[in-house]
């Protein structure tokens, strides 16, 4: 672990020392602190049980299950269209991005492909839901650190993106717009140039956040060198998305696999950062939001004319077989392993959600860290509870 900076070494040794000191030298009695399940810093009901020595965390263990809705059991009794309504409630901030891998897996089983126009609009809505998801993260990052202003700017500019999604699909948070073989409807008139104006606003938002937060020396002193995750440990735990790219691993599912989507038609840069600390993770997410705006602008000019849906029978029975599709969701790599036995609904769906792996590293990364840094590291790992508990 060559990349471990001395800060991480220091806090690791401090963690060990805290263990020893607990019972030998000062006979200080450790204090167990429950952060959560109702806590302002967790996106939902996550509970972190940590044993403190003074302000230093000696041992931390997240307790999940408060938001467990048993999705994988529900998918056994539902038909394919009903599962799409279920599935966009896993990562409820970027919800269109949840439907896409499931529908692609079903299409792979039926080996049909959506027409080019539907693929293009799917990619645009995918990137819009990424912008909606990550812009809220950028605002919320400020609140975790104590700055009140960024969160209101985030909600104000995110509103424009949600209005766009609602204009096209009908639902702000749960669009339920994706069908096996294409999309439910086409875009309403005037949607494309409205999207262009919104993209300009979103870029200004990114610049403001970069100056207001990332340029701030206090913010940097709080974030740099905190919660360093080296690349091989990140790969071991299966971290994905910006958390992995912030540790220097150049892995982006939009570019590294050929899905029947339109990412190859837009040229975008995959941002990585060598440090792997909290600042790197947030910085990579900020650059990715800008990249998403660029992608949407490029794709808006290349929407081909044509049908929105291929020939698909009214009652869909997916042929027998197993398929795995994963895409680069706002939180990381989200994938569905769909097993079908040829009847109306899937036989078994394994939902691989990004935050489950991203949070499984918390016991390792929180060892020997101060209490305020627990919040910093959790904020930079950026998880959504529905993603962890499914």
């Amino acid at each position, binding site marked *: 672990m060559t990349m471990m900076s001395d800060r991480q070494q220091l806090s690791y040794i401090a963690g060990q020392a805290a263990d020893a000191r607990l019972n030998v030298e000062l006979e200080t009695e450790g204090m167990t602190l429950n952060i959560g399940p109702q806590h302002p810093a967790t996106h939902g009901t996550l509970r972190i049980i940590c044993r403190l020595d003074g302000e230093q965390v000696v041992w931390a263990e997240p307790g999940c*299950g408060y938001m467990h809705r048993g999705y994988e059991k529900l998918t056994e009794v539902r038909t394919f269209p009903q599962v799409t309504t279920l599935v966009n409630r896993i990562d409820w901030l970027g919800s269109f991005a949840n439907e896409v891998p499931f529908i692609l897996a079903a299409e792979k089983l039926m080996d049909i492909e959506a027409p080019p126009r539907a693929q293009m609009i799917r990619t645009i809505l995918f990137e819009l839901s990424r912008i909606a998801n990550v812009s809220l993260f950028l605002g919320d990052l400020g609140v975790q650190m104590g700055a009140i202003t960024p969160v209101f700017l985030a909600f104000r500019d995110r509103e424009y993106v949600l209005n766009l999604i609602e204009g096209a699909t009908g639902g702000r948070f749960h669009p339920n717009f994706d069908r096996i073989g294409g999309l439910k409807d086409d875009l309403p008139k005037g949607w494309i140039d409205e999207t262009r104006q919104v993209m300009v606003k979103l870029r200004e938002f990114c610049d403001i956040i*970069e100056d207001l937060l990332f340029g701030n020396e206090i913010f940097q002193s709080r974030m740099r060198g905190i919660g360093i995750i080296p690349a091989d440990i990140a790969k*071991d735990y299966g971290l994905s998305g910006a958390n992995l790219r912030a540790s220097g691993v150049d892995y982006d599912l939009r570019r590294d696999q050929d899905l029947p989507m339109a990412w190859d038609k837009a040229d975008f840069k995959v941002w990585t950062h060598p*440090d792997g600390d909290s600042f790197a993770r947030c910085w990579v997410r900020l*650059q990715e939001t800008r990249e998403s705006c660029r992608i949407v602008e490029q794709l808006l000019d290349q929407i081909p004319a044509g049908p929105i849906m291929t020939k698909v029978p009214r009652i869909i029975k997916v042929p027998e077989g197993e398929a795995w599709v994963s895409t680069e969701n706002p939180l990381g790599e989200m994938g569905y392993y769909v097993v079908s036995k040829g009847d109306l609904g899937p036989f078994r769906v394994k939902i691989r959600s990004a935050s489950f*792996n991203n949070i499984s590293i918390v016991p390792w990364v929180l060892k020997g860290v101060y209490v305020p840094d627990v919040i910093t590291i959790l904020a930079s790992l950026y998880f959504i509870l529905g993603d962890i508990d499914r």
Partner: protein
Amino acid sequence: MAPLSDSDTTQEEPAALPGDGLREGIVDDLRRRIGDAVIDTHIAPNDDLWVRVSTDAWRQTAEALKAAGFTFFSFLSGLDWLPSPYGKGEEDPTAEPEEPDTEIRPGVTGGDTRFQVFARLVDIDRHVGITVKADVPDDAPAVDSWTTVFAGANWHERECHEMFGIGFNGHPDLRNMYLPGDFEGFPLRKDFPLLSRMIKPWPGIVDVEPMPAQDEPEEDASS
């Protein structure tokens, strides 16, 4: 403003997307490492790669694949191939229930036990993923734990144990992940009833009363 940090990746040309040649290579390399433990393999044309290994070579496969370059641990979970005896709870009580089939037909790479454990690993540099499966013996459902090879498998194995009842030998603390400690039963097993659909009568049952007066045979209203 110029990007804050000095690092930006030189956008080198991404490695070529994996063709099937690469997948055959991987299977041969795996056969060379763990010999006859590889029971069955399946390659979906330039799409994906499945390998089924024998149960006791489960951890050895993990070590072999990690050595072969599959360093990214994606997920690990279980499969229960018994068709559910309860159906969807959407049957028409008037129609007689058709006899549920109980024949266990495993999926892609076959298998002869009810439970299977499967995992997915990805080689980030060659952009290729592999799904590894192994049978779990019916009498003592237990498999070796992967936590010594991939630290990330810890949580996945806890969830799989809690949902399917598959034991993992060598796992540090196999507590319940989501369910309360004293929860008995394994929810994701197909023979675990989904109670929410048992209690409420299904509103989809057609109750359009037939014509009161005539008694000539009326056709079945439901489509």
